[in-house]
């Protein structure tokens, strides 16, 4: 809407007076450019403040390196890791583990959620236990998983799949079961059979909720993964952080933490929320 208005204003001015219009046109363009730059920079400001507080606290207290290091030391520690090729190797291990677990979690979660959601009585009965397992986080399962699968890749996969599957099951079920009966009923009167109704009503209708499940599940899975890597090891960001601590390398610990957070921001911003907004935004926030 906005750029359109600006463009219209511009052409209107342009048709009246030539050179004056050129000057006038530059102003709204510049204004939008500044506004746009402001909008992209605004989320960076709190990070800058956090950095200043961190550095300020360090400068004030001057703690030993084993307690806290300043930002520049963390930065150079990260640079070293990159130079050694360790950082991207660890990131790769973590992301691969996450991707595998998430994929299996979705493959289990979506069909199960669907089956539970299609029947009203079943979904009502299933809700409390799903909430229960949602609350018992993946980390809480670690001791048992280690007993069952040992300090192995399987333990890590199992907790990610677990933390992924439950939010996905729960939200998929919710998405399917909250579609009002009149929508499938209306399609039935148009001559639609069950498969058609699933395709035209239940799949798109449950989509926003399924996406919420994905987003929550991947977020929980990411945390569970780090915890799993603390305990199980075998590479990955969690291993990097935990291992650096045992060596007393606080700069690497904090560097690993920062990479963790930034990676998640990227996953969430670039992939999940853009898909969500693209599709849900088009349908409107409210279901009619």
């Amino acid at each position, binding site marked *: 809407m906005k750029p359109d208005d600006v463009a219209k204003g511009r052409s209107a001015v342009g048709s009246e007076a030539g050179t004056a219009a050129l000057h006038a046109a530059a102003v709204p363009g510049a204004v939008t450019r500044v506004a746009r730059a402001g909008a992209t920079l605004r989320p960076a400001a709190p990070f800058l403040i956090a950095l200043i507080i961190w550095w300020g606290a360090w400068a004030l207290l001057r703690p030993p390196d084993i307690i806290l290091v300043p930002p520049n030391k963390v930065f150079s520690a990260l640079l070293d890791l990159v130079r050694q090729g360790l950082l991207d190797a660890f990131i790769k291990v973590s992301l691969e583990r996450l991707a595998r677990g998430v994929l299996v979690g979705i493959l289990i979660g979506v069909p199960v959620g669907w089956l539970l959601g299609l029947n009203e009585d079943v979904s009502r009965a299933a809700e409390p236990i799903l909430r229960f397992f949602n609350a018992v986080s993946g980390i809480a399962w670690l001791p048992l998983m280690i007993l069952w699968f040992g300090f192995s890749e399987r333990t890590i996969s199992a907790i990610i799949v677990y933390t992924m599957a439950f939010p996905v099951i729960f939200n998929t079920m919710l998405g399917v079961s909250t579609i009002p009966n009149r929508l499938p009923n209306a*399609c039935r009167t*148009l*001559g639609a059979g069950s498969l058609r109704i699933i395709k035209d009503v239940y799949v*798109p*209708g449950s989509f926003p909720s399924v996406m919420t499940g994905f987003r929550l599940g991947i977020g929980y899975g990411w945390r569970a993964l780090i915890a799993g890597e603390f305990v199980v090891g075998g590479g990955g960001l969690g291993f990097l952080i935990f291992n650096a601590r045992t060596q007393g390398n606080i700069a690497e610990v904090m560097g690993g933490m920062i990479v963790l957070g930034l990676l998640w921001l990227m996953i969430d911003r670039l992939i999940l929320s853009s898909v969500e907004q693209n599709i849900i935004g088009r349908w409107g926030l409210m279901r009619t």
Partner: protein
Amino acid sequence: MTQANSNGSTIRASTVESEPPTIAIKSLNHVYFDYQSKKTVHALKDVELEIQPSELVTVVGPSGCGKTTLLNIIAGFIKPTEGQILVNGRPVNKPGKDRGVVFQELAILPWRTVYRNIAHGLEIQKVAKEEIERRVRRLTELTGLEGFENHYPHQLSGGMKQRVAVARTWAADPEIILMDEPFAAVDAMTRQTLQEELLSLTVRTGKTVFFITHSVEEAVFLGDRVIALSARPGRVKADITVPVSRANRSWREMSKNDALQECVEDVLELVRGEATASDRSGGAVSADRTHEA
């Protein structure tokens, strides 16, 4: 459509004596258990009704009198406890594309554009793309939706959304259209426009329409016949033929036409007793045009 018609008329010609009504409701009784109040509800009692081809029958009655239950049974969404619904002589036991429904609450799909909502029934029936385009264009014209084809429902006003719902049902070209208080949720001004549009649409397309409302004025304005249902359990209390042809009605005429005004008074009189009876149980019938949504 022409094919279906010619087929229909040949069948009718061969069975001259017993031409079945489009809809026949036979000794219908419906009882169900309400989980909220934990009570058994006798919703409909001994309902008998016949609706002829191209007739527009409106049903009025206090809230909770079983109007919507009756519509759901005709649509095939619920099975009656007792009795039968015959459509062209054949018993109804499930929803079918011969009976389109316009719901009280909006039932168009929010993730489809106006065009794709209207086209939905035709897509399901695997109608050719050009034919879909032609029919959707005709209906967007008839319902005043031109220019909104690519809008999503959330970008439309309440009245426009209901137009989409009406157009979608008409596009699929069912023989019968069941409407459950479709204009209850729009403002009074828009409602009058929609009612007039519906009249011309039904006159032009010759559909058989079963229309539920709790507004007596709406019932008289739209109907060839008005069926008054009693408070629960719903029974047919009166079956009134509206004295003016549907083709010549408009709200302007409505206020000036004595025959129509008298008809409103008659139905109101019939329904008033029921309203007070059901007021005690929370229902109401309104006579004015600006009743609440």
